[in-house]
């Protein structure tokens, strides 16, 4: 534990928005990083400087600015590959967000132009997801099932908010072509037991994709150690800019997959009637990529590595412990998700008896500048599972403090008073 070296006040100074005052003189208490994180000066300035002095298109340009931009863009790929332990930098594909990464893999299946058996998909074949997924890891697979006639199946969720593995062997069978589940739930905070699912997938011959949108920002993640086939994550949740996401995939699979988006940069040679494609990763990066955004994400992983991901994780664990304790004292509060620190991150979702989450969130913001997320957090099926339309969610990141959790609790007391 790097407990002692972690200085949250120093970190907060790197994030300009945290010193901002909201209209009406409210301070900002930002507890919505699970939705999107704030950005440190290091990331903002890297982007500004690139836009101001080094920008041009990448890859194709053969002049000084082109070389500078390409070097910065491809270095960002190196950094991100190193950050998640990718065996090869060529396995890191830049997308616009995690959703595109998930769709890219989904569109690889059942494509009539595909020739690799692992990506054939049709009636009788099955896709497995879970009830705790973000819509971005549900809808692409529903659309795939619709296009191909394959069947979509899913893991249930236990009352405690864990992946229900009791039917694992019935759910994952030789009919399963792909399993795609969250590494960490964006509502429950649950970290899923990847190894158990993976072991069964390997027996059944299925591929495994992880939606790591909520894990890569918060824990050290090593894709090689995880042993899965695909991992998706997104820049804006890890102190990086919007407009950039990442698909990591095993090189051999990425090479076997048909192209997804067609266009400049993803080709080798084009004739009017046919084309050959560039090697990975460029095969999946059609058109001008999010250049400055990738460079910003490179600066973001530099920043996170500088702090140390183990330290980030330890700090959030403290916050989660403090937050769980604090919330327990509120009357009528029901936590949705694991009540212990075991295999969970710093995301606390809950309901308050008799008060609609929309009202909770809005009063917290209105009266105290406390920013939480309310609603179904793009995980409506999970909320249906718990029989509730919505929850209030506080999610923590490296720049949050226990004082901010105190402000949340004060706010919740106030909310209860307003609606008493």
């Amino acid at each position: 534990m790097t407990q002692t070296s972690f200085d949250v006040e120093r970190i907060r100074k790197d994030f300009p928005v945290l010193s901002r005052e909201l209209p009406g003189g409210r301070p900002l208490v930002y507890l919505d990083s699970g939705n999107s994180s704030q950005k440190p000066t290091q990331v903002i300035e890297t982007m500004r400087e690139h836009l101001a002095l080094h920008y041009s298109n990448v890859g194709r340009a053969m002049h000084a600015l082109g070389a500078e931009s390409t070097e910065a863009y491809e270095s960002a790929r190196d950094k991100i590959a190193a950050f998640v332990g990718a065996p090869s930098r060529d396995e890191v594909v830049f997308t616009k967000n995690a959703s595109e990464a998930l769709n890219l893999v989904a569109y690889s299946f059942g494509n009539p132009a595909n020739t690799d058996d692992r990506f054939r998909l049709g009636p009788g074949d099955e896709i497995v997801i879970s009830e705790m997924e973000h819509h971005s890891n549900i809808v692409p697979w529903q659309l795939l099932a619709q296009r191909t006639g394959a069947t979509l199946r899913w893991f249930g969720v236990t009352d405690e908010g864990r992946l229900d593995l009791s039917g694992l062997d019935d759910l994952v069978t030789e009919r399963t072509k792909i399993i795609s589940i969250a590494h960490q739930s964006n509502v429950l905070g649950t970290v899923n037991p990847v190894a158990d699912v993976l072991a069964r997938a390997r027996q059944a011959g299925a591929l495994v994709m992880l939606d790591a949108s909520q894990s890569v920002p918060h824990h050290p993640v090593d894709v090689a150690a995880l042993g899965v086939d695909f991992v998706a994550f997104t820049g804006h949740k890890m102190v990086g800019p919007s407009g950039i996401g990442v698909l990591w995939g095993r090189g051999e699979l990425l090479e076997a997959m048909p192209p997804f988006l067609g266009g400049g940069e993803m080709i080798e040679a084009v004739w009017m009637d046919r084309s050959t494609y560039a090697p990975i990763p460029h095969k999946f990066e059609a058109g001008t990529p999010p250049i400055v955004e990738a460079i910003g994400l490179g600066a973001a992983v530099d920043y996170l590595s500088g702090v140390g991901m183990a330290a980030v994780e330890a700090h959030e664990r403290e916050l989660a412990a403090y937050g769980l304790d604090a919330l327990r004292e509120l009357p009528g509060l029901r936590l949705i998700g694991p009540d212990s620190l075991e295999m969970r991150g710093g995301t606390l979702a809950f309901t308050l008896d008799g008060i609609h989450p929309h009202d909770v969130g809005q009063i917290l913001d209105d009266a105290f500048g406390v920013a939480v997320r309310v609603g179904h957090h793009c995980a409506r099926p999970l909320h249906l599972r718990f029989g509730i339309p919505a929850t209030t969610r506080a999610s923590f990141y490296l720049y949050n403090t226990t004082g901010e959790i105190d402000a949340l609790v004060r706010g919740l007391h106030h909310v209860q008073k307003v609606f008493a």
Partner: protein
Amino acid sequence: MIGESMYQELILEHYKHPQGRGLREPYDAEVHHVNPTCGDEITLRVRVGEAGKIEDVSYDGQGCSISQAAASVLHELTTGSTVRETLSVVDEFTRLMQGRGQVEPDEDVLGDAVAFAGVAKFPARVKCALLSWMAYKDAVVRSAAQ
């Protein structure tokens, strides 16, 4: 508490003491509307009398304070007016709600409904405010079709 607050006293007042809540007879049309993104629901009935006069708007539903208060304000503003008058209020309210906080509301037309101006800045809440109003419009159209 502050100028921008969405929770004007008036909204809370209507939420805690809803006007005209409950489903009543007689009625000319009944509709049921749902906001699938947040689960808010409303059942709403209208009774139209002579010369297109709205004699009653009765309703029941569940949801956040904004959606509940909006139904209560709707009841107050419509009952006793003519269909034509109320539809222009609905239009102005819709314009305000969809204006992303950029529209200057016409207080003469909107009356108490001006209190919802702050909602317009939160696209996710706009649907809450509009739920009952859209249901009302729908119900009026159906009653006319009968």
